[in-house]
């Protein structure tokens, strides 16, 4: 029995080696490699989150995230209150520069949400400007619905995703 196992292990090892040699990753001759941008091999690996996009969002610790209603980019009263706190932080440290990231919930199409996120970021920027924060200290970017912080598919998650994140540069 023992010799049989040894034999089996040896066979497995040999076959592993043979396969290892034979199955060198074959490079598909797709392009002449003339550019930086080449077509990668298909890798249906799955390291992603529920929604597919990696979550790397959220405001820097100094700042408060502000939230919006569905399909709206006007500032709610609670958003204005938090935005004022962010403005205080900006005024205390005149060297601070930030990017306001506009985000949306998953409902509606990609393209419309990109535009909506842009409007949300600019609503906050304009409000900050009206309160004396110089425009050259604040830039904006929209991620549309591509970077949710909450991965659920209900109103609770959606409410958390309709937001502006304030990120220190």
């Amino acid at each position, binding site marked *: 029995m023992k010799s049989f196992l040894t034999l089996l292990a040896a066979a497995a090892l040999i076959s592993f080696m043979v396969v290892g040699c034979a199955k060198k990753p074959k490079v598909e001759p797709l392009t002449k490699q003339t550019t930086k941008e080449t077509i990668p091999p298909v890798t249906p690996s799955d390291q992603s989150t529920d929604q597919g996009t990696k979550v790397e969002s959220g405001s820097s610790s100094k700042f408060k995230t502000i939230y919006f209603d569905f399909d709206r980019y006007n500032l709610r009263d609670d958003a204005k209150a938090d935005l004022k706190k962010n403005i205080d932080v900006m005024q205390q440290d005149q060297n601070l520069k930030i990017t306001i990231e506009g985000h949306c919930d998953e409902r509606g*199409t*990609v*393209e419309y949400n990109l535009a909506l996120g842009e409007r949300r970021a600019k609503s906050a920027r304009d409000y900050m400007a009206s309160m004396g924060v110089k425009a050259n200290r604040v830039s904006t970017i929209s991620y549309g619905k591509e970077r949710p912080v909450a991965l659920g598919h209900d109103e609770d998650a959606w409410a958390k995703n309709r937001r502006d994140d304030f990120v220190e540069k």
Partner: protein
Amino acid sequence: MTTLDYTLTLNMCRKAEDFGARRPHPYTARMCAGKSTHSRMSLGSVIATLILMLTVCFIAPQALAQKGIDISGAIRTGKFNAFKIAVGDFKVVGDWSLTADSLAATVKKVVTDDLDFHVFFDTITVNQFYVDVWEIKDLTPEVWARMGADYLVDGTLELKGDDAVVAYRISELHPQVQEMKDEKLRTRRGNIRRIAHMVGDAAVKQIAAEKPFFTTKIAYACAASGRKEVWLCDYDGANAMRLTNDQSIALSPCWDREEDKLLYTTFKHGSAEVWELDIRSGKSRSISAYPGINSAPSISPDNDEIAITLSKDGNPDLYILNRKGEIKRRLTDLPSSIESGASWSPTGQEIIFTSDRTGTPQIYRVDPDGVGITRLTYEGKYNDSPDYSPLGDAIVYVARGEDGDFQICTIDTKGSDFGQLDQTGSNENPHWSPDGWHVVLCKQVGAKYDLYIMDRFKKKIKKITSDGKSSNPAWQPFAD
């Protein structure tokens, strides 16, 4: 890997007129024309068929009545009866092997699925009762006719080295069996699905005299590799492959009208920019990288202009760029609303888009010079993502229903004749097939986003991806 095989030699032996105006497609494998041979009916099967003909009640061939009629008009008025077609076996000839048998089964399945999906066709399946009662061994055209088919596609498959040779024939079964077309197609084994799609294409062309789409592709955004990248698959979801490797967010592909290129939106340099990707070489170049967002590109029918959303002047508005990305003109100029999601009419005389100028997103139309803005949708509080039919007769879009779900709807180009295509689940980004009779869309079921295709009249829907992370489809237009 049976995906796009760029290494295959282009060698179109087949007569050019076989596929009409469609130019030789670069994905096409080697093919050779030739007359196929088919065994004659055996005496036994003739007798069996005669008995069947005498005993089974006669089924009127509806298809005959449709010859020479305007299918489009008939479908619209509900007077169209789909062509009843049977897909018979593709018998292995030459040396039989398991491989050959499985390839032959694949051909049959792909052709069946193609024709079953197409709005002009109903597929007829084997009536097991007839077959059992009459102990039928061979499904001849006559037997198929008795089982209700008006047309038949069948053929043979033979392996020759690394190649497979498929010989197909398309037959009309009424008033008597008559062969309409036969052809031999040769390809590498791994490319067998494409050959099967070409058989389906031939049936559509031969029987319905319509331009077929079974060999077209769908570009889409997919996060199966971890990040959202632009992917490409066959129209039926097979042969999915990733095209971009931006490692950020890539989405909203839009097809070039002539070449195998896509415009798409990417965040690879931080914010949303529009790039052009050459599918075959993998090369990409920046098209639009103005400050703010650059998104939702749509290429004009003459292939010369891009309608796009830019926020460089402070607010998301529509602009027209040339193909290099230089701004030619601004289409909309409202200081406090979103204008996005442009789509051209096939004549190039109109652009439709989404605007929230009244407080909620609605669909509008505008002339390509920016005048004549007219609102098209008034029902509901959320209408978005319009796509202008390549037939020029309808607009497909998403409407948010009372229950909060997003449904696929259609209107005519004046905003009337409201219709609903799909009311289940939550849907987004509907996009017409190149023939204008079918639609691809993204449907969310639970936490999963997948692509579905459906036809416009039978409304039969079919799921084509299953990774749960696919969205943003764009169906390849006809290249003509």
